[in-house]
């Protein structure tokens, strides 16, 4: 199908984008921010979403800046998946992010889709939400009341719901630099390559920062942090102990009764863990 009619405004600066967003929201319009539009425009073509106004932020230079902040790299929200895949910038994640980017959807989607857009949508089956939460990233937001930064971990508050206010824009993502001793694992299960995954497991352990986190995405409203398994991983438990702890973590999930979902979650978790613990 084709998208329903809407108004379109292209912002040349963050200030302009926020101004347009605020006045439209005040006027009772459903105004949506669009960057690459690779999820939003699909939703609009399917008439699942029909905003009154699109505020295009894809040309704001400031949103494509990448900054080295000594212990972290701050990536502008409008940096594309393809730029991350091509290693067009410093990689704080020691290969995790380029690998994830290169296996996300398809090249012709990755050239337009952005890191910030993916986080703003927070599809539970989107790769970046799970990965940014696993690595301990922080999300920089800017709105009419100024700037704030929130942990990626609590950013997703429900199904397609985030801590971002309707008049806020994701400006950047601050990703801690993994130390040389850090290891990561990533596994996702898709029935068809490039589709949204049924299960995504991301594991990051960085002993120098006393950090270990196992995230599970792909089903449910938001990615889940496997607390017990993460703790067990931090304490240097072996693969089997961590897997057992992960099973405990999963026992109370809404989809625990779903045999297919349980089995693919088990498989992606084991695969991601084995990349870290082998």
């Amino acid at each position, binding site marked *: *199908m*084709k*998208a*329903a*009619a*809407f*108004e*379109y405004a*292209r912002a040349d600066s963050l200030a302009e984008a926020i101004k347009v967003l605020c006045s439209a929201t005040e006027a009772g319009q459903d105004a949506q921010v669009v960057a690459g*539009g*690779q999820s939003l*425009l*699909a939703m609009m*073509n*399917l008439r699942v979403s029909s905003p009154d106004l*699109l505020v*295009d932020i*894809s040309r704001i230079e400031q949103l494509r800046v990448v900054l080295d902040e000594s212990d972290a790299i701050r990536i502008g929200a409008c940096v594309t998946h*393809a730029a991350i895949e091509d290693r067009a910038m410093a990689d704080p994640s020691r290969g995790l992010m380029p690998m994830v980017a290169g296996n996300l*959807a*398809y*090249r*012709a*989607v990755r*050239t*337009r889709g952005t890191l910030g857009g993916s986080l703003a949508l927070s599809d539970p089956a989107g790769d970046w939400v799970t990965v940014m939460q696993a690595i301990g990233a922080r999300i920089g937001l800017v709105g009419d009341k100024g700037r704030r930064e929130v942990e990626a971990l609590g950013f997703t508050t429900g199904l397609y719901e985030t801590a971002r206010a309707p008049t806020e824009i994701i400006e950047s993502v601050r990703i801690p630099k993994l130390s040389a001793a850090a290891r990561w694992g990533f596994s996702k299960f898709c029935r*068809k*390559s*490039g589709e949204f995954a049924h299960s995504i497991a991301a594991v990051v352990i960085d002993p120098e920062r006393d950090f270990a986190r196992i995230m599970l995405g792909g089903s449910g409203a938001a990615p889940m942090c496997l607390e017990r398994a993460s703790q067990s991983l931090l304490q240097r438990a072996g693969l089997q102990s961590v897997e057992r702890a992960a099973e405990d973590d999963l026992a109370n999930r809404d989809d625990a009764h779903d045999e297919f979902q349980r089995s693919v979650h088990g498989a992606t978790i084991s695969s991601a863990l084995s990349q870290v613990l082998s």
Partner: protein
Amino acid sequence: MQIRLTVNGKPVRADVTPRTSLADFLREALNLTATHLGCEHGICGACTVTLNGQPIRACLTLAVACDGYEVRTLEGLLTDEIMLALRDAFHRHHGLQCGFCTPGMLVSARDLIQRGKAGSDSEIRKGLSGNICRCTGYTDIVRSVRKAAEALSEAGKVRSPSGDVSKVPA
């Protein structure tokens, strides 16, 4: 809304509604019908064109968002060296049947070859996974792309299929 862009090397000025996708604009306003529309939600790949040299989904790109940009469709790649090799290989190795997916396949395959990502069948299969074909079973498409990449590599015209960034000989 008024837009100015370059399509297949020619400057274009047009008045478009915001909801017009780049694909509809190319087909309806410019009569460039090589760009096909299948699913209209980014899955089938039939509408793949290039924007500023990068492959994109023309169904998931608004025409208004392309103001000032450079668009290239299959019609604009008639004399492109990689496309000539691909066309020859698709012809020889039966890389199409009904032809609906072919424009998108060709644009995607050209990008794979250009980026040195057509070195093996598995690499080509992964690279073309965003382009759906319901006729061929893909075998002949993959073979066609591999043969084109090999032919270009032998002629020293693009990166070797192994992914090495070998210099183009003068």
